[in-house]
């Protein structure tokens, strides 16, 4: 039996010299890190010299599908990208759907590692064994959607293209990678690292077949998986709305980002919910590779500022460019979505930055003279103005482009209290003052305030939102399950949204790869990856640890003023209780550093000398 699911080699590209080489995908790497996020974490640890600046030739970008990416089964279209993040200085990664990741496999690679800096704005073209840098030409400076279209015309429709917009070129610290006219690796500013490296786009084409260890059995199992999905009630009930389906529920439980998270229930949410999306703007469902339940909605929306076509808006964009800036019409959210996509801005961080700026303006911490206009809640023109200023780093936009944490340090007042972030990464779409498991999930997420490592708010609602017991434990459990999908190269939404059973993935993995790993073994890999990313951040950030894990003061000091969660807050003492419980269960020190015993147990003993040298006490 051959090893299936892997293409057998990793492509290394040096943008400085334009040279590339391939190395075999190591058996140890496969065994200990599986792929995707695991490869990202290990390659960053190994290949980024300690203390490297995010914007430097030595920083790398890793682009990694997983062993199940591109293989026939539900949700096999995901790619993981990682770098030392300019947004946080910590380990940074982001995940993206579409068709880019399978194409990397068909081109023959298990990962792409990019270092150096191109001497001029360039695109990287990977046409199976032919790897070359080309001058970016007229796509440099172009919007991400426009650039992708032009590159398809230049190279051919069958190339899959990942591209940055002006925000990436201008080093906005939450610039994203865009693909397939509306899919993004949105978080941690990987787009800015591409921009610094003069890398406008990565264009991939391949025609190889993916080897499968037990082809007949894997095919039969995958067909059964699809049939199971089609039989789930959520297949028909959830799919037409996609992630926007959850807008009503999040408002009902008082967790919807509203006016820069000052409130948690948006009175205008019925104008931007899943029903509004379907009734007023949606054209078609747009799916990623292999997806039975496409969450993507391609839309057309008309507003006072013009008409747009856009993929979305999905839930996070509705939350951060909707409720968080008080836009109450789905057409307006779609418009802001389209603007952010073309500029190449993460809608989560972008929506945070806009909400933060509007609140600063309302509080008199920013003036009309400083901003260049009046800012107001629920005003599309204000939001679009801010997004464009940010992407171009003009005026107030230059301050906001470094993220709300850095911006609050320059704006002053008490703005740091309502800069909604952890580790310098802006908070995504679930306010957590009355959701302790969700709160500890955000606090300890390895890349900063992001929901997708542990979406525990349903656990809070199910088990009682006023008690802290068991909440850290649940977060840890989910922090191993959910990122495992990122290592396998799969989407988790069939499991999350329509109740597709995890056992299916456990059964199909050995059939595809030929590796006799049980689900517990894979979860162990996920725990190893989690500890390694934490160790990476500790290696890279002076004094890293507990202080990097607190939520913004607003969430610890300001009770929710109104709505279903009125009066709720998680005090610093309560957050400390959650952290102590979390660290103890993880085998970390009370300072939040992985303990020596845990590191040895996970086969991560190799990080101990580096962390010790950096002054961390691991007992």
């Amino acid at each position, binding site marked *: 039996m051959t090893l299936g699911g892997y293409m057998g080699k990793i492509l290394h590209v040096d943008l400085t010299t334009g040279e590339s080489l391939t190395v075999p995908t190591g058996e140890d790497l496969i065994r200990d890190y599986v792929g995707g996020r695991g490869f990202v974490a290990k390659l960053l640890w190994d290949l980024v010299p300690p203390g490297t600046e995010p914007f430097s030739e030595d920083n790398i970008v890793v682009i990694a599908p997983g062993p199940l990416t591109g*293989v*026939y089964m539900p949700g096999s279209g995901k790619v993981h990208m990682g770098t030392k993040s300019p947004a946080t200085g910590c380990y940074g990664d982001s995940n993206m759907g579409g068709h880019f990741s399978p194409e990397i496999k068909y081109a023959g690679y298990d990962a792409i590692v990019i270092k150096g800096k191109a001497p001029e704005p360039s695109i990287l073209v990977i046409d199976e064994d032919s790897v070359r840098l080309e001058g970016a030409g007229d796509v440099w400076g172009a919007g991400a959607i426009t650039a992708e279209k032009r590159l398809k015309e230049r190279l051919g429709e069958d190339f899959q293209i990942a591209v940055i917009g002006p925000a990436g070129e201008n080093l906005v610290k939450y610039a994203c990678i865009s693909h397939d*006219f509306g899919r993004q690796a949105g978080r941690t500013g990987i787009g800015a690292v591409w921009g610094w490296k003069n890398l406008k786009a990565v264009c991939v084409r391949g025609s190889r077949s*993916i080897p499968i260890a037990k082809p007949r059995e894997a095919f039969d199992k995958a*067909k059964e998986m699809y049939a199971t999905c089609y039989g789930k009630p959520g297949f028909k009930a959830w799919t037409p709305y996609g992630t926007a389906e959850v807008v009503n529920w999040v408002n009902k439980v008082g967790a919807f980002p509203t006016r820069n998270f000052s409130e948690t229930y948006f009175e205008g949410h019925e104008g931007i919910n899943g029903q509004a999306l379907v009734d007023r703007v949606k054209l078609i*469902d747009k799916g990623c590779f292999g997806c039975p339940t496409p969450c993507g909605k391609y839309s057309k929306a008309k507003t006072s500022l013009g008409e747009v076509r856009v993929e979305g808006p999905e839930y996070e964009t509705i939350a951060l460019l909707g409720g968080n800036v008080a836009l109450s019409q789905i057409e307006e959210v779609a418009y802001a979505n389209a603007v952010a996509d073309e500029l190449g801005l993460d809608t989560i961080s972008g929506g945070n930055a806009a909400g933060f700026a509007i609140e600063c303006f309302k509080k008199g911490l920013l003036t009309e003279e400083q901003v260049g206009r009046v800012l107001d809640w629920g005003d599309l023109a204000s939001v679009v103005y801010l997004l464009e200023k940010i992407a171009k780093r003009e005026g107030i936009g230059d301050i906001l482009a470094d993220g709300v944490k850095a911006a609050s340090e320059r704006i002053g007042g008490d703005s740091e209290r309502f800069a909604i972030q952890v580790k310098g990464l802006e908070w995504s779409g679930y306010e957590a003052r009355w959701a302790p498991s969700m709160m500890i999930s955000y606090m300890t997420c390895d890349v900063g305030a992001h929901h997708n490592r542990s979406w525990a708010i349903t656990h809070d609602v199910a088990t009682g939102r006023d008690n802290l017991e068991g909440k850290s434990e649940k977060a840890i459990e989910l922090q191993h399950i959910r990122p495992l999908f990122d290592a396998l190269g799969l989407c988790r939404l069939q499991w999350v949204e329509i109740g597709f059973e995890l056992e299916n993935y456990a059964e199909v993995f050995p059939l595809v790869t030929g590796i006799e790993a049980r689900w517990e073994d894979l979860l162990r890999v996920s725990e190893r990856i989690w500890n390694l990313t934490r160790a990476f951040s500790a290696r890279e950030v002076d004094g890293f640890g507990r202080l990097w894990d607190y939520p913004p003061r607003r969430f610890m000091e300001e009770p929710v003023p109104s709505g279903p969660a009125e009066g709720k807050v998680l005090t610093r003492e309560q957050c400390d209780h959650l952290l102590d419980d979390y660290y103890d269960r993880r085998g970390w020190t009370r300072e939040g550093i992985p303990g020596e015993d845990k590191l040895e147990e996970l086969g991560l003993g190799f990080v101990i000398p580096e962390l010790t040298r950096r002054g961390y006490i691991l007992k």
Partner: protein
Amino acid sequence: MRLCSYSDRCSGCKVCVLTCALSNHGLNNPKLGSVSILPRFPEPGLFELGVCTKCGACRDACPVGAIQEQANGFYRVDPSLCVGCGVCVEECPQKVIRMIPESNVAFTCVGCGECVKYCPKEAIVDLDGEVKRV
């Protein structure tokens, strides 16, 4: 069986072409599937979906007579006669004929119906109702 495609339902997921390639060639390779999916983005924003309509253009175009109609009305390439010239690939109005690299033989839709069974969006259907989505 008569295949019909609905572009307004297609989400571009490629489940059809993967199912086709695995069923007919045993290869995990969507580029070998005999369905055509042409993304049209950002404008107008849809996938143009093409399936075999049994039009017979491939048979008419084949210079060596390697393509013959089957009992079900679909066409089959005789691998022992096909010379791999690719004329049928060019002439197919639906763009659903593929050259199989291992054999350098053309392959066109034989009407197996696997795409109908597994398309999540029921964007490919059998107008005769003999085959349905699982």
